[in-house]
Protein backbone atom coordinates (compact mmCIF):
# COMPACT_ATOMS: atom_id res chain seq x y z
CA UNK A 1 0.00 0.00 0.00
CA UNK A 2 2.90 2.32 0.77
CA UNK A 3 4.25 2.08 -2.75
CA UNK A 4 0.82 2.98 -4.03
CA UNK A 5 0.93 6.38 -2.43
CA UNK A 6 4.62 6.94 -2.98
CA UNK A 7 4.95 5.85 -6.57
CA UNK A 8 1.73 5.03 -8.35
CA UNK A 9 -0.35 8.04 -7.40
CA UNK A 10 2.19 10.70 -8.38
CA UNK A 11 2.98 8.82 -11.59
CA UNK A 12 -0.69 8.58 -12.50
CA UNK A 13 -1.30 12.25 -11.77
CA UNK A 14 1.70 13.21 -13.85
CA UNK A 15 0.69 11.14 -16.85
CA UNK A 16 -2.89 12.33 -16.57
CA UNK A 17 -1.83 15.97 -16.35
CA UNK A 18 0.33 15.52 -19.41
CA UNK A 19 -2.48 13.94 -21.39
CA UNK A 20 -4.96 16.58 -20.27
CA UNK A 21 -2.62 19.25 -21.51
CA UNK A 22 -1.54 17.62 -24.77
CA UNK A 23 -4.79 16.10 -26.10
CA UNK A 24 -6.63 19.38 -26.77
CA UNK A 25 -3.89 20.23 -29.23
CA UNK A 26 -4.95 17.27 -31.37
CA UNK A 27 -8.66 17.01 -30.79
CA UNK A 28 -11.15 19.76 -30.00
CA UNK A 29 -12.20 19.96 -26.34
CA UNK A 30 -15.86 19.53 -27.21
CA UNK A 31 -15.20 16.07 -28.66
CA UNK A 32 -12.55 15.34 -26.07
CA UNK A 33 -15.04 15.95 -23.27
CA UNK A 34 -17.43 13.29 -24.48
CA UNK A 35 -14.52 10.89 -24.97
CA UNK A 36 -13.56 11.42 -21.35
CA UNK A 37 -17.16 10.83 -20.29
CA UNK A 38 -17.36 7.62 -22.28
CA UNK A 39 -14.04 6.63 -20.78
CA UNK A 40 -15.56 6.96 -17.33
CA UNK A 41 -18.56 4.90 -18.42
CA UNK A 42 -16.37 2.16 -19.83
CA UNK A 43 -14.30 2.29 -16.66
CA UNK A 44 -17.42 1.64 -14.56
CA UNK A 45 -18.16 -1.58 -16.40
CA UNK A 46 -14.49 -2.50 -16.40
CA UNK A 47 -14.55 -2.30 -12.62
CA UNK A 48 -17.51 -4.58 -11.99
CA UNK A 49 -16.85 -6.95 -14.86
CA UNK A 50 -13.09 -7.10 -15.19
CA UNK A 51 -12.35 -7.02 -11.50
CA UNK A 52 -15.60 -8.19 -9.94
CA UNK A 53 -16.65 -10.77 -12.50
CA UNK A 54 -20.16 -9.34 -12.70
CA UNK A 55 -21.44 -9.48 -16.27
CA UNK A 56 -23.83 -6.58 -16.61
CA UNK A 57 -25.60 -6.24 -19.94
CA UNK A 58 -27.32 -3.08 -18.88
CA UNK A 59 -24.71 -0.66 -17.63
CA UNK A 60 -26.42 1.90 -19.85
CA UNK A 61 -29.35 1.81 -17.43
CA UNK A 62 -27.26 3.54 -14.76
CA UNK A 63 -25.80 5.91 -17.31
CA UNK A 64 -29.30 6.92 -18.36
CA UNK A 65 -30.56 7.07 -14.80
CA UNK A 66 -27.75 9.41 -13.87
CA UNK A 67 -28.45 11.65 -16.84
CA UNK A 68 -32.18 11.74 -16.28
CA UNK A 69 -31.85 12.25 -12.55
CA UNK A 70 -29.60 15.19 -13.19
CA UNK A 71 -31.94 16.73 -15.75
CA UNK A 72 -35.06 16.31 -13.66
CA UNK A 73 -33.40 17.53 -10.48
CA UNK A 74 -31.79 20.46 -12.27
CA UNK A 75 -35.11 21.62 -13.68
CA UNK A 76 -36.69 21.42 -10.26
CA UNK A 77 -33.86 22.91 -8.23
CA UNK A 78 -32.16 25.39 -10.54
CA UNK A 79 -28.66 25.01 -9.18
CA UNK A 80 -26.48 22.16 -10.40
CA UNK A 81 -24.77 21.03 -7.20
CA UNK A 82 -27.48 18.88 -5.62
CA UNK A 83 -28.53 17.38 -8.96
CA UNK A 84 -24.96 16.24 -9.52
CA UNK A 85 -24.96 14.48 -6.17
CA UNK A 86 -28.36 12.93 -6.79
CA UNK A 87 -27.24 11.73 -10.19
CA UNK A 88 -24.61 9.62 -8.45
CA UNK A 89 -26.85 8.46 -5.62
CA UNK A 90 -29.98 7.42 -7.50
CA UNK A 91 -28.27 4.92 -9.83
CA UNK A 92 -26.28 3.59 -6.88
CA UNK A 93 -29.39 2.97 -4.81
CA UNK A 94 -31.18 1.44 -7.78
CA UNK A 95 -28.22 -0.82 -8.41
CA UNK A 96 -28.06 -1.79 -4.75
CA UNK A 97 -31.69 -2.89 -4.85
CA UNK A 98 -31.36 -4.65 -8.17
CA UNK A 99 -28.10 -6.23 -7.14
CA UNK A 100 -29.51 -7.45 -3.87
CA UNK A 101 -32.38 -9.05 -5.72
CA UNK A 102 -30.05 -10.78 -8.15
CA UNK A 103 -27.15 -11.77 -5.93
CA UNK A 104 -29.21 -12.91 -2.97
CA UNK A 105 -31.16 -14.98 -5.45
CA UNK A 106 -27.91 -16.72 -6.38
CA UNK A 107 -28.17 -15.68 -9.99
CA UNK A 108 -25.00 -16.10 -11.93
CA UNK A 109 -23.36 -15.35 -15.22
CA UNK A 110 -25.75 -15.58 -18.14
CA UNK A 111 -28.85 -15.14 -16.03
CA UNK A 112 -27.37 -12.02 -14.53
CA UNK A 113 -26.74 -10.79 -18.03
CA UNK A 114 -30.32 -11.47 -19.05
CA UNK A 115 -31.84 -9.68 -16.09
CA UNK A 116 -29.64 -6.63 -16.44
CA UNK A 117 -30.48 -6.59 -20.14
CA UNK A 118 -34.18 -6.82 -19.40
CA UNK A 119 -34.03 -4.04 -16.82
CA UNK A 120 -32.44 -1.74 -19.38
CA UNK A 121 -35.17 -2.65 -21.84
CA UNK A 122 -37.88 -1.96 -19.30
CA UNK A 123 -36.44 1.45 -18.54
CA UNK A 124 -36.04 2.23 -22.22
CA UNK A 125 -39.54 1.16 -23.20
CA UNK A 126 -41.07 2.94 -20.27
CA UNK A 127 -39.27 6.25 -20.64
CA UNK A 128 -39.76 6.16 -24.38
CA UNK A 129 -43.51 6.10 -23.90
CA UNK A 130 -43.72 9.04 -21.49
CA UNK A 131 -44.29 11.73 -24.08
CA UNK A 132 -47.63 12.82 -22.69
CA UNK A 133 -47.99 15.86 -20.45
CA UNK A 134 -49.16 13.69 -17.57
CA UNK A 135 -45.66 12.29 -17.09
CA UNK A 136 -44.10 14.89 -14.84
CA UNK A 137 -41.76 14.83 -11.88
CA UNK A 138 -42.11 18.16 -10.13
CA UNK A 139 -41.61 20.73 -12.85
CA UNK A 140 -39.92 18.37 -15.28
CA UNK A 141 -41.78 16.65 -18.08
CA UNK A 142 -40.28 13.27 -18.95
CA UNK A 143 -40.81 13.91 -22.58
CA UNK A 144 -40.84 10.34 -23.87
CA UNK A 145 -38.84 9.82 -27.03
CA UNK A 146 -38.23 13.55 -27.25
CA UNK A 147 -36.20 13.56 -24.10
CA UNK A 148 -35.68 16.43 -21.72
CA UNK A 149 -33.98 19.58 -22.96
CA UNK A 150 -33.36 22.94 -21.37
CA UNK A 151 -32.14 22.19 -17.87
CA UNK A 152 -29.67 24.05 -15.74
CA UNK A 153 -26.16 22.95 -16.66
CA UNK A 154 -23.11 22.86 -14.44
CA UNK A 155 -22.51 25.97 -12.44
CA UNK A 156 -20.20 27.03 -9.65
CA UNK A 157 -21.88 25.77 -6.48
CA UNK A 158 -24.23 28.43 -5.20
CA UNK A 159 -23.91 30.70 -8.23
CA UNK A 160 -26.52 29.52 -10.72
CA UNK A 161 -25.51 32.08 -13.30
CA UNK A 162 -21.84 31.20 -13.21
CA UNK A 163 -21.72 28.39 -15.74
CA UNK A 164 -18.90 25.94 -16.31
CA UNK A 165 -18.77 24.94 -19.95
CA UNK A 166 -16.41 24.64 -22.89
CA UNK A 167 -12.70 24.27 -22.02
CA UNK A 168 -13.14 24.56 -18.23
CA UNK A 169 -15.79 21.85 -18.44
CA UNK A 170 -13.37 19.59 -20.28
CA UNK A 171 -10.84 19.98 -17.48
CA UNK A 172 -13.57 19.43 -14.92
CA UNK A 173 -14.54 16.11 -16.51
CA UNK A 174 -10.94 15.02 -16.99
CA UNK A 175 -10.05 15.75 -13.38
CA UNK A 176 -13.13 13.89 -12.19
CA UNK A 177 -12.08 10.89 -14.26
CA UNK A 178 -8.65 11.06 -12.70
CA UNK A 179 -10.13 11.21 -9.20
CA UNK A 180 -12.44 8.28 -9.92
CA UNK A 181 -9.52 6.34 -11.36
CA UNK A 182 -7.39 6.94 -8.28
CA UNK A 183 -10.22 6.09 -5.91
CA UNK A 184 -10.89 2.82 -7.70
CA UNK A 185 -7.20 1.99 -7.81
CA UNK A 186 -7.05 2.50 -4.06
CA UNK A 187 -10.16 0.35 -3.65
CA UNK A 188 -8.66 -2.47 -5.68
CA UNK A 189 -5.55 -2.47 -3.52
CA UNK A 190 -7.59 -2.51 -0.32
CA UNK A 191 -8.90 -5.66 1.31
CA UNK A 192 -12.34 -5.10 -0.20
CA UNK A 193 -10.88 -4.90 -3.67
CA UNK A 194 -8.68 -7.92 -3.27
CA UNK A 195 -11.58 -9.99 -1.96
CA UNK A 196 -13.71 -8.76 -4.87
CA UNK A 197 -11.12 -10.14 -7.27
CA UNK A 198 -11.14 -13.36 -5.28
CA UNK A 199 -14.89 -13.54 -5.72
CA UNK A 200 -14.41 -13.17 -9.43
CA UNK A 201 -11.98 -16.07 -9.41
CA UNK A 202 -13.95 -18.47 -7.23
CA UNK A 203 -16.88 -17.24 -5.25
CA UNK A 204 -17.52 -20.57 -3.55
CA UNK A 205 -14.04 -20.50 -2.09
CA UNK A 206 -14.40 -16.95 -0.86
CA UNK A 207 -17.73 -17.83 0.75
CA UNK A 208 -16.11 -20.83 2.40
CA UNK A 209 -13.64 -18.43 3.97
CA UNK A 210 -16.50 -16.71 5.71
CA UNK A 211 -16.99 -13.68 3.46
CA UNK A 212 -20.50 -12.60 2.58
CA UNK A 213 -20.13 -12.77 -1.17
CA UNK A 214 -23.62 -11.52 -1.95
CA UNK A 215 -23.27 -8.35 0.07
CA UNK A 216 -19.87 -7.60 -1.42
CA UNK A 217 -21.08 -8.08 -4.97
CA UNK A 218 -24.00 -5.78 -4.28
CA UNK A 219 -21.69 -3.07 -2.96
CA UNK A 220 -19.36 -3.37 -5.93
CA UNK A 221 -22.28 -3.34 -8.32
CA UNK A 222 -23.59 -0.17 -6.69
CA UNK A 223 -20.15 1.44 -6.89
CA UNK A 224 -19.99 0.74 -10.62
CA UNK A 225 -23.46 2.17 -11.03
CA UNK A 226 -22.47 5.32 -9.13
CA UNK A 227 -19.60 5.90 -11.53
CA UNK A 228 -21.83 5.26 -14.53
CA UNK A 229 -24.38 7.65 -13.05
CA UNK A 230 -21.74 10.33 -12.70
CA UNK A 231 -20.81 9.81 -16.33
CA UNK A 232 -24.48 10.17 -17.18
CA UNK A 233 -24.76 13.47 -15.36
CA UNK A 234 -21.63 14.77 -17.06
CA UNK A 235 -23.07 13.66 -20.40
CA UNK A 236 -26.30 15.50 -19.69
CA UNK A 237 -24.35 18.68 -19.10
CA UNK A 238 -22.31 18.17 -22.23
CA UNK A 239 -25.18 17.36 -24.57
CA UNK A 240 -27.67 19.68 -22.90
CA UNK A 241 -30.41 17.17 -23.57
CA UNK A 242 -31.20 13.69 -22.28
CA UNK A 243 -33.01 11.14 -24.43
CA UNK A 244 -34.16 7.54 -23.94
CA UNK A 245 -31.36 6.40 -26.22
CA UNK A 246 -29.08 6.61 -23.23
CA UNK A 247 -30.90 3.55 -21.90
CA UNK A 248 -30.81 1.69 -25.15
CA UNK A 249 -29.55 -1.81 -25.83
CA UNK A 250 -27.22 -0.30 -28.37
CA UNK A 251 -25.60 1.87 -25.74
CA UNK A 252 -25.14 -1.11 -23.42
CA UNK A 253 -23.65 -3.07 -26.28
CA UNK A 254 -21.18 -0.30 -27.00
CA UNK A 255 -19.97 -0.20 -23.41
CA UNK A 256 -19.32 -3.92 -23.48
CA UNK A 257 -17.47 -3.64 -26.77
CA UNK A 258 -15.29 -0.87 -25.34
CA UNK A 259 -14.24 -3.15 -22.51
CA UNK A 260 -13.51 -6.08 -24.75
CA UNK A 261 -11.49 -4.07 -27.21
CA UNK A 262 -9.68 -2.13 -24.52
CA UNK A 263 -8.91 -5.09 -22.31
CA UNK A 264 -10.91 -6.57 -19.49
CA UNK A 265 -9.06 -7.01 -16.24
CA UNK A 266 -7.06 -3.81 -16.63
CA UNK A 267 -8.01 -0.37 -15.36
CA UNK A 268 -6.80 1.60 -18.32
CA UNK A 269 -8.12 -0.81 -20.93
CA UNK A 270 -11.82 0.08 -20.84
CA UNK A 271 -10.99 3.79 -20.78
CA UNK A 272 -8.78 3.47 -23.82
CA UNK A 273 -11.31 1.22 -25.54
CA UNK A 274 -14.14 3.63 -24.87
CA UNK A 275 -12.34 6.78 -25.92
CA UNK A 276 -10.72 5.08 -28.88
CA UNK A 277 -13.83 3.46 -30.28
CA UNK A 278 -15.96 6.54 -29.66
CA UNK A 279 -13.43 8.62 -31.53
CA UNK A 280 -13.29 6.04 -34.32
CA UNK A 281 -17.07 6.18 -34.57
CA UNK A 282 -16.86 9.95 -34.74
CA UNK A 283 -14.33 9.77 -37.57
CA UNK A 284 -16.26 7.03 -39.36
CA UNK A 285 -19.39 9.09 -39.07
CA UNK A 286 -17.69 11.70 -41.18
CA UNK A 287 -17.27 9.30 -44.07
CA UNK A 288 -19.95 7.38 -45.87
CA UNK A 289 -17.90 4.79 -47.71
CA UNK A 290 -18.45 1.85 -45.42
CA UNK A 291 -21.37 1.58 -43.08
CA UNK A 292 -20.55 2.43 -39.46
CA UNK A 293 -22.39 -0.47 -37.91
CA UNK A 294 -20.84 -2.93 -40.30
CA UNK A 295 -17.36 -1.85 -39.32
CA UNK A 296 -18.10 -1.89 -35.59
CA UNK A 297 -19.42 -5.40 -36.00
CA UNK A 298 -16.34 -6.60 -37.84
CA UNK A 299 -14.08 -5.02 -35.26
CA UNK A 300 -15.90 -6.77 -32.43
CA UNK A 301 -15.79 -10.17 -34.13
CA UNK A 302 -12.12 -9.84 -34.99
CA UNK A 303 -11.25 -8.86 -31.45
CA UNK A 304 -13.14 -11.74 -29.89
CA UNK A 305 -11.50 -14.18 -32.27
CA UNK A 306 -7.97 -12.90 -32.37
CA UNK A 307 -7.38 -10.40 -29.60
CA UNK A 308 -9.68 -11.60 -26.84
CA UNK A 309 -7.59 -10.02 -24.16
CA UNK A 310 -8.03 -6.62 -25.72
CA UNK A 311 -5.68 -3.92 -26.82
CA UNK A 312 -4.03 -2.85 -23.60
CA UNK A 313 -2.83 -6.30 -22.50
CA UNK A 314 -1.72 -7.03 -26.06
CA UNK A 315 0.31 -3.85 -26.20
CA UNK A 316 1.66 -4.51 -22.73
CA UNK A 317 2.78 -7.99 -23.81
CA UNK A 318 4.41 -6.56 -26.88
CA UNK A 319 6.23 -4.04 -24.73
CA UNK A 320 7.39 -6.72 -22.35
CA UNK A 321 8.61 -8.92 -25.15
CA UNK A 322 10.48 -6.10 -26.83
CA UNK A 323 11.91 -4.23 -23.90
CA UNK A 324 11.16 -5.91 -20.63
CA UNK A 325 12.93 -8.59 -18.67
CA UNK A 326 11.69 -12.08 -19.39
CA UNK A 327 9.37 -13.15 -16.67
CA UNK A 328 6.30 -15.35 -16.41
CA UNK A 329 3.16 -13.68 -17.66
CA UNK A 330 -0.07 -14.30 -15.78
CA UNK A 331 -2.15 -16.79 -17.65
CA UNK A 332 -5.54 -15.97 -16.27
CA UNK A 333 -6.33 -13.27 -18.76
CA UNK A 334 -9.49 -11.77 -19.98
CA UNK A 335 -10.85 -14.98 -21.46
CA UNK A 336 -11.28 -16.66 -18.10
CA UNK A 337 -12.76 -13.54 -16.63
CA UNK A 338 -15.33 -13.34 -19.39
CA UNK A 339 -16.24 -16.97 -19.50
CA UNK A 340 -16.59 -17.38 -15.77
CA UNK A 341 -14.23 -18.25 -12.95
CA UNK A 342 -14.72 -21.40 -10.89
CA UNK A 343 -17.98 -21.73 -9.02
CA UNK A 344 -19.66 -19.11 -11.15
CA UNK A 345 -22.53 -20.00 -13.43
Amino acid at each position, binding site marked *: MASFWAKEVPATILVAALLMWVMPMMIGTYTLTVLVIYGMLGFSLGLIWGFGGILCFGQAAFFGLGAYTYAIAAINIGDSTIPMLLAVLVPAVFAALLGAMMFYGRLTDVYLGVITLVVTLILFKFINSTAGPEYVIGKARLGGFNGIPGFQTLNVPGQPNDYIYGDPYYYFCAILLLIVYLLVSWLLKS*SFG*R*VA*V*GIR*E*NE*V*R*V*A*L*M*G*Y*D*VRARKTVLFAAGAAIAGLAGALFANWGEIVTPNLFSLGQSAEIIIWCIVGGLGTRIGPIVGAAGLAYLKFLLGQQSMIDNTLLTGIILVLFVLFLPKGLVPAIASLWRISFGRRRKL*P*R*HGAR*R*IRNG*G*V*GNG
Partner: protein
Amino acid sequence: MAEVVLETVGLTMRFGGVVASDNVDFKLRAGELRCLIGPNGAGKSTFFKCVTGLLTPTGGQVFMRGHETTGWNPHQVAALGVGIKTQVPNLMDGLDVFENIWMAARRFLPMQDAMRKTTEVIERLALGPIARTELGRLAHGERQRVELGLVVAGDPWLVLLDEPAAGMSADDVERMSDIIREMTRTAAVVIVEHDMQFIRSIANTVTVFHQGAVLMEDHVDRVMADLTVRNVYLGKKA
Protein backbone atom coordinates in the same frame (compact mmCIF):
# COMPACT_ATOMS: atom_id res chain seq x y z
CA MET B 1 -15.75 -34.93 28.80
CA ALA B 2 -14.90 -32.21 26.31
CA GLU B 3 -17.75 -30.10 24.96
CA VAL B 4 -19.66 -31.22 21.91
CA VAL B 5 -18.62 -28.89 19.09
CA LEU B 6 -20.54 -30.48 16.22
CA GLU B 7 -23.77 -32.40 16.42
CA THR B 8 -26.39 -33.54 13.99
CA VAL B 9 -29.79 -34.88 14.98
CA GLY B 10 -31.74 -36.90 12.44
CA LEU B 11 -30.02 -35.21 9.52
CA THR B 12 -31.75 -36.19 6.30
CA MET B 13 -31.16 -35.18 2.69
CA ARG B 14 -33.50 -36.22 -0.06
CA PHE B 15 -33.00 -35.56 -3.76
CA GLY B 16 -36.37 -36.33 -5.23
CA GLY B 17 -36.82 -39.99 -4.46
CA VAL B 18 -33.20 -40.63 -3.47
CA VAL B 19 -32.35 -40.52 0.23
CA ALA B 20 -28.70 -39.49 0.25
CA SER B 21 -28.51 -38.93 4.00
CA ASP B 22 -30.76 -41.03 6.19
CA ASN B 23 -31.53 -39.79 9.68
CA VAL B 24 -27.91 -39.30 10.72
CA ASP B 25 -27.10 -38.68 14.37
CA PHE B 26 -23.56 -37.50 14.87
CA LYS B 27 -21.55 -36.09 17.76
CA LEU B 28 -18.04 -34.64 17.74
CA ARG B 29 -16.17 -33.33 20.78
CA ALA B 30 -13.49 -30.67 21.08
CA GLY B 31 -10.04 -31.89 20.10
CA GLU B 32 -11.42 -35.03 18.48
CA LEU B 33 -10.31 -36.30 15.12
CA ARG B 34 -12.97 -38.29 13.30
CA CYS B 35 -12.76 -39.98 9.94
CA LEU B 36 -15.84 -40.63 7.86
CA ILE B 37 -15.47 -43.60 5.59
CA GLY B 38 -17.71 -45.68 3.38
CA PRO B 39 -18.02 -46.82 -0.23
CA ASN B 40 -18.91 -44.45 -3.03
CA GLY B 41 -22.45 -43.23 -2.75
CA ALA B 42 -22.60 -43.96 0.96
CA GLY B 43 -23.56 -40.41 1.77
CA LYS B 44 -20.35 -39.11 3.33
CA SER B 45 -20.02 -36.12 1.05
CA THR B 46 -23.71 -35.34 1.26
CA PHE B 47 -23.45 -35.32 5.04
CA PHE B 48 -20.41 -33.13 4.73
CA LYS B 49 -22.22 -30.66 2.48
CA CYS B 50 -25.23 -30.50 4.80
CA VAL B 51 -22.99 -29.65 7.72
CA THR B 52 -20.98 -27.02 5.83
CA GLY B 53 -24.06 -25.38 4.38
CA LEU B 54 -23.34 -26.22 0.77
CA LEU B 55 -26.61 -28.14 0.87
CA THR B 56 -29.72 -27.42 2.89
CA PRO B 57 -30.89 -30.62 4.56
CA THR B 58 -34.47 -31.67 3.97
CA GLY B 59 -34.80 -32.89 7.55
CA GLY B 60 -33.05 -32.91 10.89
CA GLN B 61 -30.77 -30.38 12.56
CA VAL B 62 -27.15 -29.33 12.76
CA PHE B 63 -25.63 -27.79 15.88
CA MET B 64 -22.23 -26.15 16.26
CA ARG B 65 -21.08 -25.38 19.78
CA GLY B 66 -24.69 -25.66 20.86
CA HIS B 67 -26.06 -23.18 18.32
CA GLU B 68 -28.33 -24.45 15.59
CA THR B 69 -26.84 -23.91 12.16
CA THR B 70 -29.27 -25.97 10.07
CA GLY B 71 -29.70 -24.47 6.63
CA TRP B 72 -27.11 -21.76 7.21
CA ASN B 73 -25.19 -20.44 4.23
CA PRO B 74 -21.61 -21.66 3.88
CA HIS B 75 -20.25 -18.22 4.57
CA GLN B 76 -22.16 -17.99 7.81
CA VAL B 77 -20.79 -21.36 8.91
CA ALA B 78 -17.26 -20.41 7.92
CA ALA B 79 -17.56 -17.07 9.69
CA LEU B 80 -18.09 -18.94 12.96
CA GLY B 81 -14.52 -20.14 12.65
CA VAL B 82 -15.03 -23.37 10.77
CA GLY B 83 -12.40 -24.37 8.21
CA ILE B 84 -13.71 -26.14 5.13
CA LYS B 85 -11.97 -27.96 2.33
CA THR B 86 -14.15 -29.32 -0.46
CA GLN B 87 -13.76 -32.55 -2.39
CA VAL B 88 -12.64 -30.86 -5.56
CA PRO B 89 -10.11 -28.20 -4.59
CA ASN B 90 -11.83 -24.84 -4.58
CA LEU B 91 -9.12 -22.30 -5.16
CA MET B 92 -8.67 -18.96 -6.84
CA ASP B 93 -6.76 -20.09 -9.89
CA GLY B 94 -5.85 -16.73 -11.27
CA LEU B 95 -4.22 -15.56 -8.06
CA ASP B 96 -1.01 -16.74 -6.48
CA VAL B 97 -0.55 -18.87 -3.37
CA PHE B 98 0.17 -15.90 -1.12
CA GLU B 99 -2.97 -14.05 -2.17
CA ASN B 100 -5.12 -17.13 -1.67
CA ILE B 101 -3.89 -17.76 1.84
CA TRP B 102 -3.86 -14.05 2.72
CA MET B 103 -7.55 -13.82 1.95
CA ALA B 104 -8.31 -16.62 4.39
CA ALA B 105 -6.17 -15.03 7.09
CA ARG B 106 -7.59 -11.55 6.53
CA ARG B 107 -11.11 -12.68 7.34
CA PHE B 108 -10.30 -12.91 11.01
CA LEU B 109 -7.21 -10.73 11.42
CA PRO B 110 -6.34 -7.07 10.81
CA MET B 111 -4.06 -6.31 7.87
CA GLN B 112 -0.62 -6.54 9.47
CA ASP B 113 -1.42 -9.69 11.41
CA ALA B 114 -2.91 -11.23 8.31
CA MET B 115 0.31 -10.67 6.39
CA ARG B 116 2.30 -12.24 9.19
CA LYS B 117 -0.04 -15.19 9.51
CA THR B 118 0.15 -15.80 5.77
CA THR B 119 3.94 -15.96 5.83
CA GLU B 120 3.74 -18.29 8.82
CA VAL B 121 1.37 -20.67 7.11
CA ILE B 122 3.39 -20.67 3.91
CA GLU B 123 6.48 -21.64 5.86
CA ARG B 124 4.72 -24.30 7.86
CA LEU B 125 3.37 -25.96 4.74
CA ALA B 126 6.62 -25.61 2.82
CA LEU B 127 4.95 -23.51 0.17
CA GLY B 128 7.79 -20.98 0.06
CA PRO B 129 9.16 -21.81 -3.40
CA ILE B 130 5.73 -21.52 -5.02
CA ALA B 131 4.34 -18.68 -2.92
CA ARG B 132 4.16 -16.31 -5.85
CA THR B 133 3.04 -18.85 -8.43
CA GLU B 134 -0.44 -18.70 -9.86
CA LEU B 135 -2.62 -21.49 -8.55
CA GLY B 136 -3.73 -22.51 -12.01
CA ARG B 137 -0.18 -23.57 -12.80
CA LEU B 138 0.32 -25.84 -9.81
CA ALA B 139 0.10 -29.60 -9.70
CA HIS B 140 -2.83 -31.22 -7.95
CA GLY B 141 -0.91 -32.22 -4.87
CA GLU B 142 0.40 -28.69 -4.44
CA ARG B 143 -3.10 -27.31 -4.82
CA GLN B 144 -4.36 -29.60 -2.08
CA ARG B 145 -1.58 -28.34 0.14
CA VAL B 146 -2.50 -24.74 -0.56
CA GLU B 147 -6.10 -25.43 0.28
CA LEU B 148 -4.99 -26.93 3.55
CA GLY B 149 -3.07 -23.74 4.12
CA LEU B 150 -6.23 -21.76 3.46
CA VAL B 151 -8.02 -23.74 6.11
CA VAL B 152 -5.23 -23.37 8.66
CA ALA B 153 -4.87 -19.64 8.06
CA GLY B 154 -8.27 -18.98 9.55
CA ASP B 155 -7.30 -20.53 12.92
CA PRO B 156 -10.45 -22.62 12.99
CA TRP B 157 -11.86 -24.47 16.01
CA LEU B 158 -13.59 -26.97 13.72
CA VAL B 159 -12.05 -28.32 10.56
CA LEU B 160 -13.97 -30.20 7.88
CA LEU B 161 -11.86 -31.82 5.18
CA ASP B 162 -13.29 -33.71 2.22
CA GLU B 163 -10.70 -36.08 0.78
CA PRO B 164 -7.58 -34.11 1.68
CA ALA B 165 -5.22 -36.91 0.65
CA ALA B 166 -6.61 -37.40 -2.83
CA GLY B 167 -3.93 -37.24 -5.49
CA MET B 168 -1.11 -36.58 -3.06
CA SER B 169 2.28 -38.26 -2.96
CA ALA B 170 3.35 -40.28 0.10
CA ASP B 171 5.55 -37.45 1.30
CA ASP B 172 2.76 -34.93 0.94
CA VAL B 173 0.40 -37.22 2.79
CA GLU B 174 2.83 -37.58 5.66
CA ARG B 175 3.39 -33.86 5.87
CA MET B 176 -0.33 -33.36 5.87
CA SER B 177 -0.83 -35.92 8.62
CA ASP B 178 1.59 -33.95 10.78
CA ILE B 179 -0.29 -30.76 10.18
CA ILE B 180 -3.64 -32.37 10.90
CA ARG B 181 -2.34 -33.84 14.14
CA GLU B 182 -1.12 -30.38 15.08
CA MET B 183 -4.54 -28.98 14.25
CA THR B 184 -6.21 -31.23 16.79
CA ARG B 185 -4.45 -29.32 19.53
CA THR B 186 -6.71 -26.36 18.85
CA ALA B 187 -9.52 -27.77 16.72
CA ALA B 188 -11.84 -30.70 16.25
CA VAL B 189 -11.32 -32.31 12.86
CA VAL B 190 -13.63 -34.28 10.60
CA ILE B 191 -12.11 -35.98 7.57
CA VAL B 192 -13.93 -37.72 4.77
CA GLU B 193 -11.48 -40.12 3.20
CA HIS B 194 -10.85 -43.18 1.08
CA ASP B 195 -7.13 -43.62 1.63
CA MET B 196 -6.94 -46.42 4.18
CA GLN B 197 -3.28 -46.05 4.96
CA PHE B 198 -3.76 -42.40 5.71
CA ILE B 199 -6.75 -43.12 7.88
CA ARG B 200 -4.91 -45.78 9.83
CA SER B 201 -2.06 -43.40 10.47
CA ILE B 202 -4.07 -40.61 12.00
CA ALA B 203 -7.50 -41.86 12.95
CA ASN B 204 -8.81 -42.77 16.32
CA THR B 205 -12.56 -43.04 15.96
CA VAL B 206 -14.05 -43.80 12.59
CA THR B 207 -17.66 -43.45 11.45
CA VAL B 208 -18.74 -45.78 8.68
CA PHE B 209 -21.46 -44.62 6.31
CA HIS B 210 -23.54 -46.97 4.24
CA GLN B 211 -26.53 -46.09 2.06
CA GLY B 212 -26.89 -42.72 3.69
CA ALA B 213 -26.93 -43.92 7.28
CA VAL B 214 -24.31 -44.55 9.94
CA LEU B 215 -23.40 -48.22 9.91
CA MET B 216 -20.86 -48.27 12.69
CA GLU B 217 -18.87 -45.88 14.80
CA ASP B 218 -15.90 -47.18 16.72
CA HIS B 219 -12.15 -47.23 17.07
CA VAL B 220 -10.42 -47.64 13.74
CA ASP B 221 -8.98 -51.08 14.47
CA ARG B 222 -12.30 -52.53 15.52
CA VAL B 223 -13.97 -51.02 12.48
CA MET B 224 -11.38 -52.41 10.11
CA ALA B 225 -11.78 -55.86 11.65
CA ASP B 226 -15.57 -55.86 11.59
CA LEU B 227 -17.05 -58.34 9.14
CA THR B 228 -20.07 -56.25 8.13
CA VAL B 229 -17.87 -53.29 7.35
CA ARG B 230 -15.56 -55.48 5.34
CA ASN B 231 -18.43 -56.87 3.33
CA VAL B 232 -19.84 -53.44 2.73
CA TYR B 233 -16.65 -51.65 1.95
CA LEU B 234 -13.27 -53.20 2.37
CA GLY B 235 -13.50 -55.58 -0.51
CA LYS B 236 -9.84 -55.05 -1.22
CA LYS B 237 -6.71 -55.16 0.95
CA ALA B 238 -6.24 -51.87 2.80
